[in-house]
């Protein structure tokens, strides 16, 4: 391969073909830049964690603030004039209930669609479906929230018999619709990565298509499929705007999927703007951020360990 810079420079004086000084310098610079890009992820994660933790820290050392109460009380009165109480239990329950419901809907749909796109449909259908699924992923979350608030809520009141249209079911359906495209596109990539020789061997042994998928492809692609599902979970836990609008934003422990809830993310989004800087309310919201950070960290760590465990088998 000839370097274009070297080709343009005056003919080298020695017999041996050498690269120009600029080419070597350029290569080194590029290498450094790329290395920096790689390391930057670490810097950002540590930096963000440090900042969030630093803002939350002073609250932890306070005598009038108990972490147990923060985690296990359901009373959230951050701006009360009589008795300020910070308890996020209802929001933890809210976050989990919406996420779990979303995953119950999204995982079968997402994986099913991934298997269909990758194994069963024809090339033309495949292209159309992939484009449309990517389009689904491009809809902004605030638009999803709007659909939840206006369209979905009326449907739920009319057909599901809900007393209020904005509830866990609404949020769960909206979040499921948002995470399905992620699960489909990553799941499809994972299935595509299974070598064709597996398929050929399976068919040669007389397996039908369903047996091939169930016995050969799913076990072979399980790591990638798990990653797809977990990224979907990540999206659902971290989503803010859509759940803020679709779940009803009510601080209460739900008794069924037609009750309204509030999630941790939505609470931060709704309240951080008005909380005066460095006030107690502001610090408690950052503490909620630390809690969210911990939840996603645990989810990711578990996923990592599970994948490792699967690999060893």
């Amino acid at each position, binding site marked *: 391969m000839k370097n274009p810079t070297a080709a343009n420079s005056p003919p080298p004086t020695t017999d041996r073909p050498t690269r120009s000084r600029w080419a070597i310098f350029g290569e080194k610079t590029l290498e450094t830049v790329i290395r920096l890009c790689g390391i930057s992820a670490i810097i950002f994660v540590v930096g963000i964690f440090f900042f969030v933790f630093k803002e939350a820290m002073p609250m932890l050392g306070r005598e009038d603030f108990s972490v147990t109460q923060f985690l296990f009380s359901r009373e959230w009165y951050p701006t009360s004039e009589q008795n300020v109480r910070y308890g996020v239990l209802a929001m933890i329950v809210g976050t989990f209930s919406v996420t779990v419901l979303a995953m119950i809907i999204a995982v079968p749909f997402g994986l099913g669609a991934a298997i269909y796109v990758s194994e069963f449909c024809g090339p033309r259908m495949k292209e159309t479906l992939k484009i449309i699924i990517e389009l689904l992923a491009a809809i902004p979350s605030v638009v999803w929230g709007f659909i939840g608030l206006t369209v979905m809520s009326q449907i739920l009141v009319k057909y599901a018999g809900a007393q209020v249209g904005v509830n866990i079911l609404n949020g769960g359906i909206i979040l499921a619709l948002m995470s399905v495209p992620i699960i489909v596109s990553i799941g499809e990539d994972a299935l595509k990565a299974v070598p064709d020789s597996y398929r050929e061997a399976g068919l040669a042994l007389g397996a039908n298509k369903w047996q091939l998928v169930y016995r050969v492809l799913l076990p072979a692609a399980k790591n990638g499929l798990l990653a797809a599902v977990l990224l979907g979970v990540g999206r659902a836990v971290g989503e803010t705007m859509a759940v803020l609008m679709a779940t009803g934003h009510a601080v209460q422990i739900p008794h069924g999927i037609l009750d309204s809830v509030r999630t941790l993310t939505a609470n931060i989004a*709704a309240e951080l703007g008005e909380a005066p800087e460095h006030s107690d309310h502001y610090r408690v919201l950052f503490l909620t951020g630390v809690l969210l950070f911990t939840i996603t960290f645990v989810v990711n760590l578990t996923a990592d360990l599970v994948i490792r465990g699967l690999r060893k088998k």
Partner: protein
Amino acid sequence: MNPLTITGLMTAVAVTSLAVVGCKRAEGVKSAKTTIQCKGSDTMVNVVQAWAEEYHKQHQDVTVEVSGGGSGQGIAALIKGTIDLATLSRDLKEEEKARARKNTGKEPRETKVGYDALAIYVHKDNPLEEISLEQLSNIFAEGGTITKWSQIGVPPLGGRDEIIRVSRQSSSGTYEFFREHVLNKKDFKLGSRDMNGSKEVVELVGNTPTAIGYSGMGYATPAVKMLKVRPQAGAEAVAPTVENTLSKKYPIARSLLVCSLGEPQDALQTFIAWILSAPGQDIVRKCGYIPVPSATGK
């Protein structure tokens, strides 16, 4: 020579401090384009948006940018210095004034630009016509005893008896006004649906036959009904109308304010003066709110 220099210096200091502390954006009157940033009350966001459009038609060199988020967010942004004008649907709190003075060295200046009757909304099919402040407090406040429609004499709506409370997020001025004047500073009962905007409250109430909510009178739609409010049990119920608000008969009427840091200057001053003039107050009326009576007389 000497006094002149001193005067010049003083002017320079005054101008600089003004530019640094006060209206960062509105200060550039000499430049061709001026932008006034407004933020705050969701109740007022429609009005301010309408002002912004009309004002820009008449003053091509001034652009007014508007965003909502709640009165609390407006004040927070004003103190941080990211906006020029905060809009408020409640009075400024002493604690906020103190914070503004401490952080910026300027006294916040409020200007009354209109009135709103805080309306109590129910679904249009709800047979209820009037409600007392005490009943409202019992429905919305922590420890209140009313949770079912049958407790205030309304038959179950569509087979359901539970009252769905629709409230606002805590940054809302409407939320704080309601807490102060209806709940007497008591806290809200947990489990209310806390909407993120005035319009969303009315929309949810319109979709939910068993709901009750509160919002600005400008957001009324055909799907909802405004209730008459009784100041005390046994007293005459008052409808949220213009006359009743101006005569202070309606018990939960409030002023709509705009707030700047220090005495408004230059472009900002002109804008506020225009708001109080006839065309500005006409817009207040068109948006469903009540103009300031003294200002319209001019």
